[in-house]
């Protein structure tokens, strides 16, 4: 990324974004207090949300819902309409932000193609149980959540985990319930994460109707060149998401950006580098991360949203491939994927870029030709070697451009730096096959092997 591109990205916020976010913020405050007994200010906020989508196909449903909610009635249809309107506003904000980003980077993006989903309908009773908890939350508001209400979803979540097609909802509700539990009683919190919890609630309401929207796939073959891996984690789930350039075999379309996500269930006592052990079902992928290799894929499924559905049987380790070389040579011309309609939320903006030639400022930002790029130094996964020190000593960085609360920032995935005048590189996925830093290996030995201990217990106690 060049200074001039960064300048274009950081120039005044795209029109409409601040206004959309303001309406959302009003609704989020109403939700925090509970939708069952809205005061005048919050009634107005709900009406403003309805008015904002008044001209869209959601308009009628929202006019209806806001009138009912103002009268104190909040059922599943009202809750769903409100969640839909909130998602639509943030979807529009997402589009404006992504268009700005694509324009600044000169990145071309594929056009969305609806592909019919595969598979059978999901169990309706599990979705209904989830909706019923989400409705209770909406009625009580975050400020009315206590440990009892936070834990009321336990059985529903347990059942969701048993249904692979509802994994997304299981993971989301489990993560959300854990936050509410640890924050209970929420009324005593110093500050409430209003935007975040309203986001999670909205998302859960949408998922509680369809179960998911991954959609259909097309198959693709070619050479996959890793750029970097983004790691996501909460108490009971971990996901490693690789961003990579795919050079398709002849006739399989343009060189493009793709993602590969693998995930596993976990428990809260499995943390740091241990989490990689839970992904051991994907050895070729983990080796590509740890050893910086390309992977040859043959006939692997690719969604319209750019997610390659990893299949070890269709992957073969290739030659060494330096992610920084890929980022310099292949990334600038790679076509970015379209965004699935329901994934249009600013939190999903995670565009890989290469930044170099910057000066690191004292507060840890990158000064690129006078343009200041914020760097997210909190988002450095403990399962990898990246530290604040390595990032602030770096000379080149592969990262994800993200946007949150009105601000763009760079989430580092890999850095090159000079340590005692020797060039060194560190990547988030370097420890995918186990830590390579002797100090970390030692700490790991000290804390035993939690995955082995718990797996052994599970084998002994859960035997049918």
């Amino acid at each position: 990324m060049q200074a001039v591109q960064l300048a274009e990205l950081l120039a005044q916020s795209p029109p409409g974004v601040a206004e959309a976010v303001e309406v959302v913020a009003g609704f989020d405050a109403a939700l925090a207090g509970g939708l069952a007994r809205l005061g005048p200010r919050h009634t107005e906020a709900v009406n403003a949300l309805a008015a904002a989508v008044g001209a869209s196909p959601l308009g009628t449903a929202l006019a209806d819902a806001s009138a009912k909610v103002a009268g104190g009635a909040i059922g599943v249809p009202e809750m769903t309409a409100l969640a839909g309107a909130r998602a639509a506003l943030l979807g529009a904000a997402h589009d404006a932000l992504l268009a700005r980003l694509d324009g600044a980077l000169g990145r071309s993006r594929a056009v969305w193609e609806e592909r019919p989903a595969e598979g059978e309908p999901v169990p309706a009773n599990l979705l209904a149980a989830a909706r019923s908890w989400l409705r209770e939350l909406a009625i009580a508001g975050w400020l009315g959540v206590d440990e009892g209400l936070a834990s009321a979803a336990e059985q529903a979540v347990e059942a969701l985990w048993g249904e692979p097609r509802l994994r997304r909802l299981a993971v989301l509700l489990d993560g959300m319930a854990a936050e509410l539990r640890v924050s209970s009683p929420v009324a005593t919190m110093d500050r409430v994460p209003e935007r975040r919890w309203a986001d999670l609630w909205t998302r859960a309401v949408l998922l509680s109707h369809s179960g998911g929207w991954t959609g259909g796939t097309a198959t693709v073959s070619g050479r996959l060149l890793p750029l970097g891996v983004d790691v996501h984690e909460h108490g009971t789930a971990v996901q490693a998401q690789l961003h990579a350039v795919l050079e398709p075999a002849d006739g399989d379309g343009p060189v493009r950006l793709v993602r590969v996500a693998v995930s596993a269930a976990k428990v809260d006592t499995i943390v740091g580098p241990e989490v990689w052990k839970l992904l051991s079902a994907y050895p070729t992928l983990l080796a590509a991360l740890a050893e910086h290799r390309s992977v040859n894929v043959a006939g692997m499924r690719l969604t319209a949203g750019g997610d390659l559905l990893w299949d070890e049987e269709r992957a073969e380790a290739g030659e060494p491939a330096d992610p920084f070389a890929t980022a310099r040579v292949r990334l600038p011309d790679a076509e970015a994927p379209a965004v699935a309609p329901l994934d249009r939320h600013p939190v999903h903006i995670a565009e890989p870029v290469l930044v170099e030639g910057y000066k690191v400022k004292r507060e840890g930002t990158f000064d690129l030709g006078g343009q200041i790029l914020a760097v997210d130094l909190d988002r450095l996964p403990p399962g990898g070697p990246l530290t604040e020190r390595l990032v602030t000593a770096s000379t080149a960085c592969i990262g994800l451009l993200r946007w949150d609360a009105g601000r763009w920032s760079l989430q580092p995935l890999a850095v090159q730096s000079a340590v005692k005048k020797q060039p060194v590189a560190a990547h988030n996925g370097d420890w995918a096959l186990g830590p390579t830093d002797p100090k970390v290996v030692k700490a790991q030995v000290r804390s035993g092997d939690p995955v082995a201990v718990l797996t052994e217990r599970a084998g002994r106690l859960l035997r049918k």
Partner: protein
Amino acid sequence: MTSGDAGWEERSAVRVVPPLRPRKLAKVPFVELAEGRLQGVVSSGSDIARVYVSSIAAGTHNFSCSTNNNRPCAGAGGSRHCKHLKALIDEAVRQYGFDRVARYLKVDASEGDDLHFLLKGRLEKAPAAMVFSRFLRHLTYLQVPAVSEPLPEMHWFPAWKAVA
């Protein structure tokens, strides 16, 4: 720069659950602050097939220890903690940090105080079966197969840096 606190309420991706510290799990495989108790499962020192279910109630600090088959632990009685309860407290502090454990149990204490000394409850039988079944449920997470379909919702849950 670290993201700091500016605009915390307006952000989508913030850390809400405090990080847990890694600890050895062999002796006390399961600890939780839930259902108004510090509760968990402690391995028997002598019999690999046996575990103890130990718990301490928030507020009253009354405690309980028995095997998962509800046989009372001989070591706990009156106002005396057995070694399982002691191990439960130590491992909870290791996992959650002193403050979080003290706050949940409603102990008026500050870092450096001896929690064993401050928890002055009495033996009061609590249901071991419930806690044990929560432990089993905890273990079932390890048996859920990994998947390669994306979980877009996990973008709300970044892996945050370790806290020293």
